[in-house]
């Protein structure tokens, strides 16, 4: 059965034939590339705000999405993390391979995810990661599967996510973020904007359906 499906080239040929018939011929690469470059992009592709205002916008938009945000200097991350974990009553955290040791405060258990199963991840109080890019205008943080951010399941299954965002990784607009992500486009990538949410019941926004119900963001670095 499986081999029959994989070699179903008749369907492929037929669909492509129908497309070419519908639009009167096949497309050639040079023509397609030139036409794509001709798409009008009159929308904003660059930041318009001062850096300080961009950071403030991110904080504001994250809070609007029910995330808790603290701002600290580079040296103060571990202390801030410790305070947030204590306040939330979290003790046993999972962290990705490659997370910087100086971010982790003493007095808590940090277990490095070296291939934990989903059920094992479900047993942790929370997860702590870094991030690749953050978009101020939309209150979005982007994670990729790299050192310090890890695999997608680890930031999904635990009920609590603590994410460290460096101010130099904050951009104002979505296009700026896509520019930064372009060179690593093939990595598994997750955009998140606040904790998991739904509005399926009478359009009331409810936090935390299947993903983490609580999100803390440590915003770090000097401008």
């Amino acid at each position, binding site marked *: 059965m499986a081999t029959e499906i994989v070699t179903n080239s008749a369907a492929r040929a037929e669909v492509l034939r129908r*497309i070419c018939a519908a639009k009167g011929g096949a497309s050639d690469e040079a023509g397609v590339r030139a036409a794509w470059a001709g798409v009008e992009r009159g929308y904003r592709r660059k930041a318009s705000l001062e850096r300080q205002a961009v950071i403030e916008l991110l904080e504001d938009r994250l809070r609007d999405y029910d995330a808790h945000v603290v701002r600290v200097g580079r040296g103060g991350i571990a202390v801030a993390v410790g305070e947030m974990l204590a306040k939330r009553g979290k003790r046993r955290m999972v962290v990705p391979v490659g997370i910087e040791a100086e971010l982790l405060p003493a007095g808590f258990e940090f277990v490095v995810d070296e291939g934990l199963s989903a059920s094992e991840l479900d047993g942790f109080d929370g997860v702590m990661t870094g991030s690749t890019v953050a978009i101020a205008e939309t209150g979005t943080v982007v994670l990729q599967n790299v050192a310090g951010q890890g695999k997608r399941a680890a930031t999904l299954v635990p009920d609590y996510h603590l994410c460290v965002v460096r101010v130099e990784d904050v951009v104002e607009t979505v296009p700026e973020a896509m520019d930064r992500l372009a060179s690593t*486009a093939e990595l598994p990538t997750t955009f998140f904007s606040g904790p998991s949410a739904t509005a399926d019941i009478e359009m009331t926004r409810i936090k935390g359906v299947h993903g983490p119900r609580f999100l803390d963001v440590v915003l770090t670095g000097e401008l």
Partner: protein
Amino acid sequence: MSGAVLDPTTSPAFPMAAKAAMGDTQLRKNVRHATEVIQAKRARVVDEMPDWQQLREAGKQIRQHTMENLDFYLEEFERNCTRSGGVVHWARDAAEARQIVTALVKASGSDEVIKIKSMTTEEIHLNDALEAAGIRAYETDLAELIIQLGRDQPSHIVVPALHKNRQQIREIFQREMNLPELGEKPEDLADAARRFLREKFLRVKTGVSGANFLIAETGGVCIVESEGNGRMCLTLPETLITIAGIDKVLPRYQDLEVVLQLLPRSATGERMNPYNSIWTGVRAGDGPQTFHVVLMDNARTEILADEEGRQTLNCIRCGACQNACPVYRQTGGHAYGSVYAGPIGAILTPQLQEMHHAQSLPYASSLCGACYEVCPVKINIPEVLIHLRNKVVKQNGLNAESLAMKTMGMIFRSEARFRAAQRLGRMAEAPLVRKDGQGEGWIGWLPGILGGWTQVRDLQAMPKETFREWWESRGKNGN
């Protein structure tokens, strides 16, 4: 309407189904509330964007360009997805797509699947096909879960259970999850769903999803969602099967910067969805290690071949047109007899049926243009509606209505015939006219096909004297 499968080949015509829906005051209340909330949120976040019109224009041009070069971009996607470890399948129609997915699920060694909300799988009635093959499908989106457990049908592209209120949802959950003590706060209901589904997320080894976008340049797939159920389905299983219409392709990774701004604001009134996931093939140690994509035509090439109808394929399924549509807001989604309801459904459904079914849908509109105003990729839905009405008339040939129109045309072309028709009309209407308190004549009922007009309104009787008659007699009397 609950329980009846939304199949355009068997559903009643829109006016019949709409009449039944109009009688359900609870449904109309639920739909009105939901669409009002979502429209207000959308307006607020769209107003924040100084470049919204430029984004719409870019979105329209990107989608148009993609359709003009669909063969090129699909092949490019296939090449790049395959290179990254994905397996690409092609399906000519719904039956072929169902057969491929069913076989892939069986080959994965599982007799159950967890599913991400997907209108494409609704379109092809995948769950029924899986069930017939002995495979249990669990919907994991909260709204889809409500519909599945309630044996109901989706009524909106983005918020498929918006026709249910919290009490109705609570009753379904109490019964189907065996939770007699369940509270009625939305939080209680969401929490029940979380507990009900978590066990399935951690256990089921095969996931089935749709796709918001396929990225030709990288071979990547993008899914946009809110709850995290999508992430669960596409990262925890061993096998992931994604089914997408061939219209879902985007040329380049960079083009996400346009659609990821247009879609969330238009769909749910959010600046960005809580979660967007982008993955490319398989990656060791992260997510499913077997990944299949089924590229499905199912009459999309038929739409592509129609130059005026082609823009229908630009749709990114945000549902903004539904929320803005006065007809949808009164009738709810089920009256459209298809999983695609509202204005976009009114043009998409008949075309997906190659104009053989759902022919009443192009008429399910007042042509007010609200759908065109809010469409993030500027699909001119009213224009397509009129184009499709034309097609329906041509297809149906001469009928009583077109015959009447032809006769009217003949009468209007000649003064003598027009005068004769006015005299004849006054005589013919006489037995139907009733006087009101002011002495005005009204007709409340017309016979035959004309009856459609008087079903919901009265017709004023013709005046005793026409303007021409008055003018001519005035001339004679010299005053």
